């Protein structure tokens, strides 16, 4: 089916999106070639200077990028494991099935930044309930102000917030699986573990890959949580790429340099996500 009016369906959306985006993207490219900052606001042309600085003289950016990779891979792995386990449990018969399904969805409906403010009070080092509990054992871990633990805190909050999204995608997938393979497995006398390994998991592979990629994309944007919870601190020990770009751009107003950071970051993200997607496809389809 094909007719000349097909563009009338497509173009309104496409044009609105392009219209709003074309300036920001084009402008970012141009900005990245200028030295625009708060002292000399203006579009001069300095060639690739910003990029040279980024690749030779900015370890902080690359550190923040490593940290981001670590944080997003860890959180997404935890979310996938926990989300799959929970989805698998409430997929089958269980008491209060609907109650659990609704409850497990709730965190993703809440505003991350607002819940993080609450989490900050939960993890408050002297007045919060977590350390109230730990003080029973005579220790008061520094959840927000020690280098190692502040990352753990960020991971806990991210897992709380976004496991439901993984849970939702995986449960929707489980509910759409055909019944026949399971019947066949039962007839062959497969137990629950074998059924999971040889039937459920392979059938879920495409959905799992989709869910993991979507979550990796969203997780790489992690910013709100860090901003509220630790502001990147102590020092720069919990700073992620987005947050670093934010500081350069909208705190220190080095617009030109932060545009170069943004574009480099965007390109790295697109390349690495494509590679990860390809790897996951190979890994999951084969097993």
């Amino acid at each position, binding site marked *: 089916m094909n007719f000349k009016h097909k563009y009338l369906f497509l173009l309104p959306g496409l044009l609105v999106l392009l219209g709003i985006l074309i300036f920001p993207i084009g402008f970012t490219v141009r900005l990245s070639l200028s030295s625009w900052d708060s002292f000399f606001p203006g579009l001069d042309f300095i060639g690739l200077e910003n990029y040279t600085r980024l690749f030779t003289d900015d370890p902080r950016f690359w550190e923040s990028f490593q940290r981001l990779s670590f944080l997003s891979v860890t959180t997404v792995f935890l979310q996938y494991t926990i989300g799959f386990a929970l989805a698998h449990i409430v997929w089958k018969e269980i008491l209060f099935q609907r109650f659990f399904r609704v409850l497990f969805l709730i965190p993703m409906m809440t*505003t991350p930044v607002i819940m993080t403010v609450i989490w900050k009070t939960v993890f408050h080092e002297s007045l919060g309930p977590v350390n109230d509990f730990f003080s029973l054992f005579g220790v008061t871990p520094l959840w927000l102000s020690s280098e190692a633990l502040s990352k753990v805190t960020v991971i806990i909050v991210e897992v709380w917030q976004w496991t439901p999204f993984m849970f939702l995608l995986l449960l929707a997938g489980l509910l759409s699986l055909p019944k026949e393979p399971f019947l066949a497995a039962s007839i062959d006398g497969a137990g629950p573990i074998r059924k999971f390994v040889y039937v459920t998991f392979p059938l879920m592979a495409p959905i799992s890959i989709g869910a993991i990629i979507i979550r990796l994309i969203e997780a790489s*944007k992690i910013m709100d949580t860090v901003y509220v919870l630790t502001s990147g601190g102590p020092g720069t020990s919990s700073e992620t790429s987005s947050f670093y770009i934010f500081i350069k751009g909208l705190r220190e107003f080095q617009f030109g340099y932060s545009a170069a950071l943004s574009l480099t970051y965007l390109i790295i993200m697109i390349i690495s996500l494509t590679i990860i997607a390809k790897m996951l496809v190979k890994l999951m389809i084969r097993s």
Partner: protein
Amino acid sequence: MRIFYVTLKYTAVTLWSMFIIAPFLWALSTSFKDFNSVTGGATYIPWVDFEPTLEGWRVLLRSPAQGGVNIVEPYLNSIFVTCMASFVSIVLGTLAAYALSRFTFKAGFIKNDDITFFFISQRIMPPVVLAIPFFIMLGKLGLLDTLLGLVMVYVVLLMPIAVWIMVDFFNKVPIEIDETALIDGCNPYQAFFKVVLPNSIPGMVVAGLFCMIFGWTDFFFAFILTFTEVQLLPVAIVSLNSSITPWWSLSAAALVSVAPLVVVAFIVERYLSKGNLSGALK
């Protein structure tokens, strides 16, 4: 073995439920505290551990001039921006998704899948990349710190979600439906509006719910692109988190802001159980 499995299952579910509920209970308890019961160390149960007060909740309704925290206006702003942006995204997204699912486009090396990918790829864009140019662009257009400016930006954030869900949905609506309508003498517009669209309500509801979730919970753009004239709810609440944090009103405000979308969780679960989501999410 079976008993072991059942025990494990219920233990896991119970533990996770406690983890999910914990911050809400803590916030609820905190919202009834006052200065002394917060600064004296962690307390939990009203009347036993501390004397409850309604102050945290009363503050929310008072005007700022009387020392209150105004969240009514940000609340209405948030509702307006989320609904408008979701509505625009759904309308434009549905139309585009229909075109991408039913017709073949070809312009050089660009095909349908590439256009779909273009829409969806907007979600890969980290918000910081767009924030600065948006800041400058809205400033030039005089739309900084206005509701209209925010709606524009949110459409960019939400339309990819609408297109993503609706393309998938239309691909599962049999094309025979369109063809029958065309044979019966409808023109393509009538076929779409009278026949296909009524059959697509479930998909549009799901897409709408997702747009609302992501619109309502966004913080970053609202934070960057507004200052004083217009404030959205997340920004208003986070700004309470200043040097001396009033934990009680903060908790109360957080609970109030989180409440409406909890209803969404019930609706999503309904769709999930009826099997409508599996088609729309994949």
